[in-house]
């Protein structure tokens, strides 16, 4: 199926916070209660529509396990968006956010949109991290924030789509150089110019004064 843009996402955060479940809920609209360990990286994809444009999200779901950290770190590069996930019922997963964020900032491109996600909002009775704490952390670090439940699907669509909207806006503003695939954005096959030196489709503004697009 043709698309105007492809955005690459990564999902990061401690093991067991529900990264793969968020992805499964988003791509397949189902919940898997059994925790299957993610090894290295796994992939998911879904088409969404923003501003009546078809956008394909290609999502790299990374392993939270320490054993794979050096491998997964290398995938931050070349992502346009990141979902940084913690578990609202386990405080330590919230406490580790700074480490994850440092890692992400260090290894990704500076324009990457990061969405902070407090997952398992259905488990209110076991909550250890207040919603306000998540909001404060997000504000302090310039992230977008949302609480989700991969189980009930609450806010899952929004988390992925709002991140895409943010990326899309940055493209419109010319912040992202869409001709550099290292930014995690690819122009769809039907929309890409035949000659790479020609301006790309998508009506984006001037990109970083390069004179291109």
């Amino acid at each position: 199926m043709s698309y105007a843009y492809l955005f690459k996402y990564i999902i990061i955060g401690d093991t067991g916070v529900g990264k793969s479940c968020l992805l499964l809920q988003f791509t397949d609209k189902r919940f898997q209660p059994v925790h299957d360990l993610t090894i290295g990286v796994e992939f998911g994809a879904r088409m969404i529509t923003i501003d009546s444009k078809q956008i394909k999200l290609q999502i790299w779901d990374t392993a939270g396990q320490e054993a794979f950290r050096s491998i997964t770190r290398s995938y931050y590069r070349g992502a346009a968006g990141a979902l940084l996930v913690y578990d609202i019922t386990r405080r330590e997963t919230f406490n580790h956010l700074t480490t994850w964020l440092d890692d992400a900032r260090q290894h990704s491109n500076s324009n990457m949109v990061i969405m902070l996600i407090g997952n398992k909002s259905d488990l209110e009775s076991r909550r250890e991290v207040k919603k306000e704490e998540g909001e404060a952390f997000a504000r302090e670090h310039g992230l977008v924030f949302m609480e989700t439940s991969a189980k009930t699907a609450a806010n899952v669509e929004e988390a992925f789509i709002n991140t895409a909207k943010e990326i899309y806006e940055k493209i419109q503003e010319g912040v992202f150089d869409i001709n550099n695939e290292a930014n995690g954005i690819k122009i769809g096959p039907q929309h890409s110019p035949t000659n790479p030196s020609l301006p790309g489709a998508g009506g984006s503004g001037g990109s970083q004064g390069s004179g291109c697009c």
Partner: protein
Amino acid sequence: MFFNRVKNAVIGAVSSGSELNGFGSESSNSGKQNQHHLAPKFPYGRPHFLHLEDDEVQMSADHKLRPIIHPSKSLPHHTGYAECVNAGKSKWNEDQAVYRQGVLSKVVTVENGNQTSAASQTFSIPYTYYGIFDGHAGVGAALCAANQLHHILHEKLVDAQDDIWADLSKNKKNGKSADSLLMGALESAFNEMDQLIAEDRNKYQAAGGCTALVALFILGKLYLANAGDSRAIICKNEEFLPISMDFTPENERDRIRKLADEQPALLGTNFTSREYTQQPRSDDLGKTIMYREAHMKGWAYKTLQPDDLKISVITGSGKRSRVMGTIGVTRGFGDHDLLAIYQKTPIKPFLSPHPEVQVHKIVSMDEKEVLVMGTDGLWDVLAGTKAAEIVSKSINTFMEKERYVSAATCLVGFARGTLANENQMWHLKGGKQASCDDISVFVIPLLPYKLEFEELMQKYFPDK
């Protein structure tokens, strides 16, 4: 945009001097020209069992990220597999991998105690096949092998199944052993695969060549067939046992020089089977030089004659050894039109599809004993001891479902290393240069094949 990246990748490979297999470009090095109108026999893709979509195939070939891909659905007995693309020496990942499960079925008439009635019974012998194929000068040959070799092998096994069964049930005197029949099936299948690629030469796009490493599990044994420089080891608790030999020009020096000595016409006008400690130069004519003939074990001196200015059929050592200055691997499939880089002498007569088959009876009851099969992209930067250490760590950390995939992923991850920034090389943890080649790895637990065999014997020969 994409083409720009590919172009950069190619420039990178040349400027860093890392044309790892010593190949020139396909068009300049192949005996055939104007092949562009022919279609490839099999379209490019990644192994079927990875179930990648088109976008993911594109993504898997990202030379800057080199994602490590593993199967999303379990392989038999949770066998592990992982792969990643090269750092830019070729557009696509030229490795291929495949696994297959098959059954040899035979209807046997069983005599009942009383002479008048006979019943028929079907005997089924299951087998599992794993193969990895490291392509060079294109993806064609490796794709052919990954799509066809198991079919050819299956036919060979079916041809041999009566004799295999006879050996198993010990009801035929002077029959051939199952071992020799299974080895023969593998050997003849390898040969036919190469023939098939030869026959396809004028029908399809140039295929290049590939190595082949195949593991056949049948009757409680592992038959490991190798033609090329991929490698297999058995790992158990941080220890390892090599069960294949690398077929490189250096290791096959004797075979190739002997052949060259017997059939000097194959050398053309520019090569010699004679070896020198130093490549002679015309300035040295009339001086003495150390040499040995193909039939000599030791070295001697001779006066340098004009005829000595020919190039030795094998040059270099280790990873840099070459046949006719061109190819760094001496067995495998394809390369039927490969010519020496400058001299344009056909090289194929010196290459062989013949595998060395090693038979390994699975005796250990240890579920931690695994077979590791990897292309040279892995072994270039990783010794057996380190591989065993990584495998052992994964096996001890994870449960059965994840441990072998995790081991494969960690092996590839180690060899691939990391890229600190885009202007640098991929490096290992200690800072040494990491593998820039395509890397593919199977990690296969052995115990299930022993248990499978015991079950089979219990079913058909409960008395033995």
